[in-house]
């Protein structure tokens, strides 16, 4: 009866907290939401899962959490195949999926007690203490007795996060955890994520906000229209598009001429700034050539590309999303 298909064999365990191969989901309506996703999330990383709204982030997360069945392909979480191993894997995973969902007629504390009771591994003897600790961690101790329907969006989001923190977790899966929060709330959530990551928890963080990923993540993957555009360490992704050489000078015309002579391409002059694709040779020599030619140089350097520029370079389109 056992189904020893691709689900069991590849990819092997131990090569990542999350590993997917050819993961695909076509919804009932025919919508291809995720298309052949090959994702590897290194253990211990803070992994940004970046993409505009509708690019398939939540669908991927639902497949990883065993809520929906992939149309094809495989997913392993903490080395075990999903959705087959949900009961073994999920007690070690805290998740916030597409915003919090709460029982409005229950207090914040009672919401957490219920979610904890749903986990068959959770020890009832330590339940109250763990709930109190989780509430404390997200700063909701004072509001713990209030009915959840009276919570603000930010408080609901934090209560959802608290539910993910009821146990020590090996993996946290957070689907747009700062959605709908004010800047202060965003900062709080981000510092909490950094704190959790510093304890060694792998964090898988989806977001449509580039700067969020740049601020907190060590690794990232970029999604567009259900397909993986790229993945890797954040520093490498940004470096993937080479930075631009920027010279600030009161003699832009001379500077542009010299840069071209030195082999720089795509030279652009804007007032006192000359930018160009850096040539292959040592930049110290380029600088020396400018000075030798009598160009008065105020500033000389390479501007590292941001993740946003990397994204534009990769997809050939802007990262314009509403909300």
């Amino acid at each position, binding site marked *: *009866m*056992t*189904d020893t*298909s691709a*689900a069991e064999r590849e990819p092997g365990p131990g090569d990542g907290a999350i590993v997917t191969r050819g993961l695909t989901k*076509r*919804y*009932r309506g025919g919508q291809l939401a995720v298309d052949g996703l090959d994702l590897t999330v290194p253990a211990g990383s803070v992994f940004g899962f970046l993409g505009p709204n509708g690019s398939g982030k939540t669908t991927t997360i*639902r497949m990883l*959490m*065993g*809520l*929906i*069945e992939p*149309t*094809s392909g495989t997913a392993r979480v903490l080395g075990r195949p999903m*959705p*087959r*191993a*949900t*009961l*073994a894997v*999920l*007690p070690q*995973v805290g*998740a916030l*999926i*597409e*915003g919090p*969902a*709460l*029982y409005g*007629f*229950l207090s914040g504390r009672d919401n957490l*007690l*219920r*979610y*904890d*009771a*749903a*986990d*068959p*591994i*959770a*020890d*009832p003897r330590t*339940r109250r203490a763990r709930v109190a600790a989780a509430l404390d961690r997200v700063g909701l101790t004072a509001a713990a007795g209030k009915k959840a329907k009276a919570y603000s969006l930010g408080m609901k989001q934090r209560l*959802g996060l608290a*539910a993910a923190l009821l146990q020590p977790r090996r993996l946290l899966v957070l689907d747009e955890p700062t959605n709908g929060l004010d800047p202060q709330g965003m900062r709080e959530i981000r510092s909490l994520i950094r704190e959790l990551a510093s304890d060694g928890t792998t964090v898988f963080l989806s977001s449509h906000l580039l700067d969020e990923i740049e601020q907190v993540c060590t690794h990232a993957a970029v999604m567009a229209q259900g397909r993986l555009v790229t993945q890797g360490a954040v520093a490498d992704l940004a470096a993937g598009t080479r930075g631009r050489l920027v010279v600030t000078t009161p003699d832009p015309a001379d500077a542009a001429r010299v840069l071209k002579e030195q082999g720089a391409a795509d030279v652009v002059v804007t007032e006192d700034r000359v930018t160009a694709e850096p040539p292959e040779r040592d930049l110290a020599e380029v600088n020396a050539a400018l000075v030798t030619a009598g160009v008065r140089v105020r500033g000389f350097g390479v501007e590292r590309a941001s993740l946003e520029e990397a994204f534009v370079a990769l997809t050939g389109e802007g990262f314009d999303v509403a909300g």
Partner: protein
Amino acid sequence: MSRADLDPAQEGTGGTAQESAGRTARTTQESTEQRIPLARRGSLLLNELRTTLRRWRTLALLGVLAAVPVLVGIAVRIETGDGGSAGGGTGEGPAFISQITNNGLFLVFTALAATLPFFLPMAVGVIAGDAIAGEAGAGTLRYLLVAPAGRTRLLLTKYATTMAFCLLATLVVAVSALTVGALLFPLGELTTISGTRISFTEGLGRALLIALVVAASLTGVAALGLFVSTLTNSGIAAMATTVGLLITVQILDQIPQLDAIHPYLFSHHWLSFADLMREPVYWDDLVKNLGLQALYAAVFGSAAWARFTTKDITT
């Protein structure tokens, strides 16, 4: 049944092969539950019972059910306030109503006979219909499942809670009726349908037995409601559908031309509980009723399981 089998989570390619693989997978996965201590596994059931009782909807339903014996008791009392027995004794109204003035205990039987055709199963339909669909609509289902509650465990918990509600609702009617009966009418020995006399204590015993049988009569609707609840993500839609099916079945049961199907309608033998008031007890219809309820529970329970364990949770 067939809809549940042919309408699994998987879309597009693969159809049945993939589906059975998926179901095997989940069955294997659920078996890890066996190793978990019972005390921990029971946590969810306890919490579910408590949570259900804290919904205002549950309390409102129980309130309505408690009010029915009060209304019946007061109506009978007013009717017979100027002495004499109720409305000349026979004919109109629910079973046993004519005996209430002689013995308040009969209000228990009358109230159960009055609520079993509609109020009780409607209340059960609301609770059962909301069980899964309500959680799906609120989005709390996904968090229960990633906790991970386990799909089979969650469904069993929901069914057990619905059954507990059946019992509680029936007892609410019975206790309310007994209280009102004791306050408004004399208590004492009573006469069975067969004409023999039994002591008040034995009468109380029969009342309890009848309440248990009435509660058991609701298991079929409970299973049906739970199955409907796995088909939609709207608690309201599931409740309305279940109550609608209840009404439809009750109407079909009244149409003589359809008597071929009557024995298979879950409500057909409901009023057989009155046979517990015969001396000796007449068991045939009682057994048919309980057997039919078990059949409904098996069929719709399996259908609910087949549907729920393969369903895509997208809310």
